[in-house]
């Protein structure tokens, strides 16, 4: 199963992400994001623990992606792999993740191939069928 594909959008980048389950959907979305940003391959050295919550799964996906964008640019950390668990308590969706990666300076770095400002909530959707999950996210570039 392919992890994601890029769709048409007049000004920004629209991605459709596929996965067998919710956890993989979040992991594959992160993979899509960082493959848009850089081709850099590395072995993870450090771990950051992330916990986020939202009232909707769709919102949680965008909050997750923006958290990763923010860590990339603010703390110069490039995620490489992810251990994700998603839970729900009293209607609140929660992600708990160990993000493993490397120190990486995104500024003035030739390995960075595009700039992504943020993941957006516009036309955001997550569909579920017998094959699994598919999400659509628009990144502002």
């Amino acid at each position, binding site marked *: 199963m392919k992890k994601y594909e890029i769709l048409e959008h007049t000004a*920004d980048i629209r991605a459709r992400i596929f996965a067998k389950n919710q956890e993989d959907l979040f992991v594959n979305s992160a993979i899509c994001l960082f493959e848009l940003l850089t081709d850099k391959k590395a072995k993870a050295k450090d771990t950051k623990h992330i916990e986020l919550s939202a009232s909707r799964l769709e919102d949680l996906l965008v909050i997750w992606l923006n958290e990763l964008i923010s860590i990339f640019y603010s703390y110069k950390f490039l995620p490489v792999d992810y251990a994700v668990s998603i839970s729900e308590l009293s209607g609140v969706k929660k992600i708990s993740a160990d993000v493993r990666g490397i120190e990486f300076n995104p500024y003035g770095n030739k390995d960075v191939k595009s700039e992504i400002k943020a993941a957006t909530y516009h036309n955001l959707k997550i569909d579920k069928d017998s094959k699994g999950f598919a999400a659509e996210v628009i990144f502002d570039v």
Partner: protein
Amino acid sequence: MPEIAFEKIDDYKFRIPKSYKQGMRVDGIIYATEKLLSGAKNDNAFEQVANVAFLPGIVKYSLAMPDIHWGYGFPIGGVAATDPEEGGVVSPGGVGYDINCGVRMLKTNLTLDDVRDKIPAIVNRLYQDVPSGVGSTGDVSVTVKEERKILVEGAKWAVSRGFGVADDLESCEEQGAIEGADPDSVSKRAYLRGREQSGTLGSGNHFLEVQVIDEIFDAKVAEKFGLSVGQIAVMIHSGSRGLGYQVCDDYVKEMLSCLDKYSINIPDRQLACAPVKSVEAQKYIGAMRAAANYAWANRQVLMHLTRAAFGKVFSKSWQSLGMDLIYDVAHNIAKFEKRVVDGKEKYLCVHRKGATRAFGPGNPELAQKYQETGQPVIIPGDMGRASYLLVGTRKSEEETFASTCHGAGRVSSRHEALRKIDVNVLLKELKAKGIEVRATGKKTIVEEAPSVYKNIDDVIEVVQKSGISRKICRMRPLCVVKG
């Protein structure tokens, strides 16, 4: 979704009636010709005009300028004003991630003959001396204390550090620093992102372009601005970089929770908003203004580097090259402006998302030197065709909350451009037209190819004929530095 039945108001205005979608509080009005309208029908932009009409407290109509294209939340080219006294909201998505993305234009006393043989030298020098490109980092390194000053003082901070002169400030919207910025409402992450990027152009559609004036439409105003045919000008397009993106993201997230809290019904969560008078909105407004000031400081530094680069090429000071600032405009911002609505004076929150303020002659907020002419409005086109200088009009104050277009507007995607356009063929075509391009990546050049944009002449025709701004002169590009 149903197809939108546009009602033609006149040759340059079309209406989306509020009956189109339940929940629209006002009509949508699009400034366009039939040609431009049909060219943009395949994307979601018009649906977005209808979505903006849901915003609580929206006044008169949800507007779109002729460069309209698909954005997120608001369309690019979208304008909406809300009335804080009637529960009006502010929406971070109505300003966008690149807060105070904008353009400035400076003139020179050089002519085409002076620069013709020096174009490669100029573009190479600019490319070398002005940091650009994906994740570019600047030479201007600042401490957190200094960064807080930038957020309050904007372009004034840059001038106080020797990047330009006091006269530059008079030629900026808000004199290069909007009041009411609150550096405490800006997150640590935004500071971290901002610190790396002071004095950088950025990537995507940001650019630095050397142009020649090739046509004058209003000789009197052009003369007043010191502009004539054959003269060289420079345009700089950049914004608040990572600092602004982080501010927007922080507050869109915060305002999602305001939707339930204030019982706000909107069809797109990217339009998340809060009543202007709420604590959440006030914090956002303080942070947004801080980011706007960062952008003004940034463009001031970029202009300083540009002047210095020209100085090196021509072995002269920038003053003796006559490199004075014509004006600097913000095209992603929310501002509080006085407007008369149905005979009553109101203090409205005007969102401009890919739209330019266009104050007419006599507007008390303009500096003395623009009182007679109206505010200069700078509209960049694509890198292969042309850009325009216009002025604002009284009609724009009456009709469009003093707003006009901001550029050509995209018609096709970056993805499609990468699939269809060969960068070497494109560069050859541009060179044949006498246009030199430098960029860190070939990808950006392709993504920003002239063919992905509407023809700027068509866009300008609409704002001119509808009377919401007035053409002064047109410039064609000679060399371009892209991110």
